[in-house]
């Protein structure tokens, strides 16, 4: 034995067994590691086998893409995407007059162009911050003038003619842009040492969190007019915007408060010891860290808000959901509600998923707490 040990030259490392690496290893580890796992894998495989072909048949292979009327779809058993194509403009713009839709398009183009640098990695953070804030300050005014008109020779388009994805994005955009800052203020107020401000914020948050959004929207459209003097009336869309904003701000406040609580006391003390005022401490030291911590929570609230915009159908606004619903009741196109709702779901999903992906990349980029 000793002889062998002396003359030993190191044997090159053997490759790991084939069953532990590569596709086979992965499958073994993840799909067939225990009897329970094997059973679940087989069950899942069977469900996929049963479902995928029919889903694909309905959405793609047996679907009708060409044609101008429901008759074109009669021959096929799959989805009738003609229904979506015919109504597409309506789903995007609602009852916005055809001749004026260029205004919506240019507003969208303006937003995409001006916000594009925000998504480019090479642009420095301070520039992005300034650009983002200026967009927040200026863009709503431009968009409002473009959409609403009545100025600069643009014919007026009343808000009840706005609809479809346009309306959904208006409500979601205004809701997000207003709910986040309001939520931050409420969260700061709730942690304030001044009893009056604290009570006010707690009451506000608990009130709005305690009522369903549907109730809020109902009250804004049915009850509010009862309390206002005769002749005074608010725009219905404006009322919905205020309702959605206040409601989501209460949720946002609690999300942000969670972030504020995670900031160590030492950060406040270090900022105070340098002579920074309360607002500067919050703006420069505490909020950048707290908001970064709660990005998942903020985006969660944003996504909920985006989907909750569909509730405005309760008060008779024609957002994407309602306009799709409306089209499915069109006597000329009865029986295509599945196509309509699948389309609406796909659009909602696209927006929500993009937000989720963006938040994940943002989180990664802002990560500076390098663990050593």
């Amino acid at each position, binding site marked *: 034995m000793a002889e062998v040990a002396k003359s030993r030259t190191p044997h090159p490392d053997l490759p790991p067994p084939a069953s532990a690496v590569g596709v086979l290893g992965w499958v073994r580890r993840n799909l067939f590691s225990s009897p329970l796992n094997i059973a679940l894998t087989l069950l899942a495989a069977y469900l996929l086998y049963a479902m995928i072909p029919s889903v694909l048949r309905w959405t793609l292979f047996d679907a009708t893409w060409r044609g101008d009327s429901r008759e074109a779809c009669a021959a096929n058993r799959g989805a009738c995407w003609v229904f979506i194509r015919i109504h597409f403009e309506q789903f995007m713009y609602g009852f916005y007059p055809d001749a004026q839709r260029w205004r919506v398009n240019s507003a969208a183009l303006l937003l995409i162009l001006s916000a594009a640098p925000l998504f480019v990695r090479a642009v420095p953070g301070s520039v992005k911050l300034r650009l983002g804030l200026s967009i927040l300050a200026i863009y709503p005014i431009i968009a409002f003038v473009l959409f609403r008109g009545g100025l600069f020779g643009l014919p007026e388009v009343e808000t009840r003619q706005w609809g479809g994805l346009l309306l959904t994005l208006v409500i979601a955009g205004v809701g997000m842009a207003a709910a986040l800052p309001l939520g931050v203020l409420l969260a700061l107020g709730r942690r304030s040492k001044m009893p009056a401000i604290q009570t006010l914020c707690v009451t506000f948050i608990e009130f709005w969190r305690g009522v369903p959004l549907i109730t809020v929207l109902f009250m804004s459209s049915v009850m509010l007019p009862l309390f206002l003097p005769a002749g005074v009336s608010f725009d219905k869309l404006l009322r919905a915007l205020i309702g959605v904003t206040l409601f989501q701000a209460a949720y946002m406040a609690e999300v942000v408060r969670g972030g504020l609580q995670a900031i*160590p006391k*030492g*950060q406040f*003390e*270090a*900022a*105070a*010891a*340098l*002579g*920074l*005022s*309360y607002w*500067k401490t919050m703006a*420069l*030291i505490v909020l*950048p*860290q707290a908001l*970064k911590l709660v990005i998942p929570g903020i985006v969660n609230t944003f996504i909920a808000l985006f989907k909750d915009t569909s509730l405005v159908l309760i008060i008779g606004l024609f957002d994407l959901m309602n306009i799709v619903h409306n089209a499915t009741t069109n006597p000329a196109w009865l029986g295509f509600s599945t196509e309509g709702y699948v389309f609406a779901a796909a659009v909602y999903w696209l927006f929500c998923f993009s937000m989720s992906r963006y938040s994940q990349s943002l989180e990664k980029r*802002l990560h*500076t*707490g*390098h*663990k*050593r």
Partner: protein
Amino acid sequence: MPESAASPARAPLSDQVMIHMERVHKWYGAFHVLKDINLTVQKSERIVICGPSGSGKSTAIRCINRLEEYQRGRIVVDGRELSNDVKLIERIRREVGMVFQHFNLFPHLTVLENCALAPIWVRKLPRKQAEELAMRYLERVKIPEQAHKYPGQLSGGQQQRVAIARSLCMNPKIMLFDEPTSALDPEMIKEVLDTMITLAEDGMTMICVTHEMGFAKTVAHRVIFMDSGEIIEQNSPAEFFNNPRSDRTKLFLSQILHH
């Protein structure tokens, strides 16, 4: 240990009073944390406060820049008496630098931004000038090469030196050190103490809560011993270490020097 470093000259002090604490009492609920603290610190004086944990020494120096409130007594800093006036407190804090046990650097900002932040936002210096100032002090604490890193990428000793530089960027008249080396690994203590010694050589008024008795011996004009919220004894380092008067001081010194 810092005894190896040159001892900064203990020049005679001017009689300009920088800090005056008079009959200061503080309670946390029913707990009497500070009992009748009286302390006068001259310009350029260096004071070391020591004592067992929970004796109120950190609380005492945190009253000076009003990170802690006190219920009775008065404190005058650089000729201004502390009050509840927020603006006054902010003005005093600008002149009083503080270094914490756990550094408390801002983790979302680079080292340079940490240092330039207060000069920009409190002193209203233009960004470029503030960053030059920050670089000057980072050179002084010997870590200019780390300027563009984040605090999380530095060692504890480096972080504490950045924290010192950050305070110095405000050009304070007084520096408070709250156990600056207690959270550090032994091999990093010296680099921080050396930085503090250079500060002392430049005539900075300093109050330092620390257990580094070597630092107290070489640098301090006066050593103060606190126990259960009271100042038990204060004396020159030579007298304090060689002829401690109270039994509690003797006990503390025997525990800390022969552990």
